């Protein structure tokens, strides 16, 4: 049993006291980050990367800490959704639909516990599936040459633009911006500078961490400044409650179905957790029909999106680890973590650095149980976090971002660049231009260009080489379909709006 020996290796790393401590710490920080309105998994992990990096943790330890934060934030997101009707992050939006009504009906505690169990199940299922599916997929990925990789990158951008955004042109533009920024610096092939405008600071290119922190964290600060801290909803106080075992048991089929669907949604490139929670909620709503009472605060309506989004969060790790192509904004951030640590994700990761992959998978399994403990019996602690006023939280986020980037690069230039990215993120989000493709472009740009140029070197400049293998052709077809098809579906499927009162 290869899987068992791999898992044994993983657990031998994960059960070291230090790694275990990091996992618990990561879960704790993550749940807080997820619960804070305005901080989600992507910007939460983003501001922590530079700091983790300067702390000098080794690759496995840093990865364990940050993925624990990521999983924790996926759990924590539901707390502000349910109690404040403000999704802590985008995927938690669907949880507000039944979670907040349930809280207003005087059952906030039950909503938190049911969703906590659903999160646990979704994440556990996804982590187990990750351990089963990822090694197999990594073997397929060995068949990939430069032409296939180029098509794969294209697929990632087109599905991200197609499925996850409202306007194809704007999503494609955002991808171009990211890719265009990745071109800045020394050309990998000729070693000559490109697009630097003669600026010495730009010779090494734009650091993706600067872009991520700027686009995700600093732009969030600008949004809060614009709103002058308004929009803070009146929260629902937590009641006294018993764990509603019967109710949790009644949602077992919902959780099972949503775990599976969420995982698949997560594996698809470009889709990620938001699609996972959306699909699962809509599916359960249709299955339950009119009598199901979705939208009025029913247990299944709370369990479905949480199982879905946590399963998708785990599923999104599959393409990220095996192919190096992230499926969502948060996994893009995790890819940035790997790249900062000099780990190249892809099929070779499983053979060259098994301790990283299996240590990570084992820590995720452990993190899940830790998170269940934190989010069910100890949930009261995290509810306290919601009362932190934005006027204190957002300046804190800014300062942490500045110190992180500053200690990484030690100069003002990257700080200015970060502010610039913050302004860009603000304007883009105002104009409904997605910022995730920008990040993905900066992260994957040079790989994508290298793949294209290597393919052309192999074929001696013959463009048809890009479509020469069945895998490549399949990827191209999916890429085109993934970009165009949502235009026709968009009118039919409307995202439900959050309930207002």
């Amino acid at each position, binding site marked *: 049993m290869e899987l068992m020996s791999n898992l044994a290796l993983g657990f031998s790393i994960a059960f070291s006291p230090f790694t275990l401590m990091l996992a618990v710490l990561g879960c704790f920080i993550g749940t807080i980050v997820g619960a804070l309105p305005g901080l989600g998994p992507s910007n939460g992990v983003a501001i922590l990367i530079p*700091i983790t990096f*300067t*702390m000098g943790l080794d690759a496995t330890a840093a990865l364990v800490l940050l993925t624990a934060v990521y999983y924790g934030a996926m759990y924590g997101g539901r707390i502000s959704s349910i109690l404040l009707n403000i999704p802590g992050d985008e995927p938690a939006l669907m949880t507000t639909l039944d979670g907040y009504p349930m809280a207003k009906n005087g059952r906030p505690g039950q909503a938190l516990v049911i969703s906590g169990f659903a999160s646990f199940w979704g994440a556990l299922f996804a982590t187990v599936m990750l351990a089963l599916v990822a090694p197999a997929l990594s073997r397929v990925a060995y068949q990939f040459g430069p032409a296939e990789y180029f098509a794969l990158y294209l697929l990632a951008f087109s599905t991200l633009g197609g499925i996850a955004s*409202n*306007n*194809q*042109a*704007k999503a*494609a*533009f955002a991808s*171009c911006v990211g*890719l*265009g920024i990745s*071109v800045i610096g020394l*050309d990998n*092939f*000729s*070693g*000559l*500078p*490109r*697009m630097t*405008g003669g600026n010495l600071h730009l010779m090494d290119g734009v650091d993706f961490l600067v872009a991520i922190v700027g686009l995700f964290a*600093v732009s969030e*600060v*600008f949004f*809060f*400044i*614009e709103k*002058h*801290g308004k929009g803070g909803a009146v929260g629902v106080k937590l009641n006294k409650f018993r764990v509603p075992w019967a109710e949790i048991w009644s949602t077992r089929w919902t959780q099972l179905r949503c775990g599976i669907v969420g995982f698949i949604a997560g594996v698809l490139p470009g889709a990620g957790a938001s699609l996972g929670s959306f699909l699962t909620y809509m599916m359960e709503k249709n299955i339950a029909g009119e009598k199901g009472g979705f939208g009025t605060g029913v247990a299944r309506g709370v369990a479905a999106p949480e199982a879905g989004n946590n399963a998708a969060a785990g599923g999104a790790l599959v393409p990220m680890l095996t192919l190096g192509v992230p499926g969502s904004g948060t996994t893009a951030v995790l890819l940035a973590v790997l790249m900062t640590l000099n780990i190249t994700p892809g099929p070779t990761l499983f053979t060259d650095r098994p301790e990283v992959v299996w240590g990570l998978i084992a820590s995720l399994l452990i993190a899940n149980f830790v998170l269940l403990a934190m989010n069910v019996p100890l949930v009261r602690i995290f509810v306290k976090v919601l009362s932190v*006023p*934005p*006027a*204190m939280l*957002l*300046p*804190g986020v*800014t*300062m*942490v971002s*500045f*110190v992180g980037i*500053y*200690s990484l690069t030690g*100069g*003002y230039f990257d*700080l*200015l660049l970060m*502010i610039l990215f*913050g302004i860009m993120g*603000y304007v883009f989000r*105002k*104009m*409904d231009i997605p910022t995730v493709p920008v990040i993905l472009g900066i992260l994957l740009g040079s790989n994508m260009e290298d793949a*294209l*140029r290597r393919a*052309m070197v192999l074929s*001696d*400049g013959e463009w048809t080489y890009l479509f020469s293998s069945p895998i490549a052709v399949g990827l191209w077809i999916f890429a085109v379909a993934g970009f165009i098809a949502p235009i026709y579906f968009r009118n039919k499927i409307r995202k439900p709006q959050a309930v207002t009162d």
Partner: protein
Amino acid sequence: MSKSDRIFGVVVVLGALAYIASALQTPTSFMSDPVGPKTFPVLLGAVAGLCGLVMVLRPDEEPDWPDLGAVFALIVSVGVLIGYAYALKPFGFLIPTAIAAAILSYQITPRPVAAVLTGLGLSVGLFILFKYVLGLGLVPVPKGWLG
């Protein structure tokens, strides 16, 4: 009808053209691969330009732009952040952080006392966290101030 998208689209088209023009200036070495360093950026510029045209021709609904007061607050905040970026090295961590955090806090919720306390608290608290818990090498105040 949205003016913002049309204006932005025009800016995108112009930007894309400038990007292509600048990509064409890239120096090439005599030893190069069949694609060369120019093709990829030129391709990107072309796609971006096309997207800009689509934005001009089929604009979305007008976004909800902030009012003048909020714009002013944003400009002040950006200015503070830029100042903070330049001040970190010469003035150390504590003083610039306290000032910048206080101003930002005031911009989010205009309560002067709370803002000042937030600034001071964040400055000292984060310094202790970064310096002593996480072990980052931060300079508290400029050299020479403490003798």
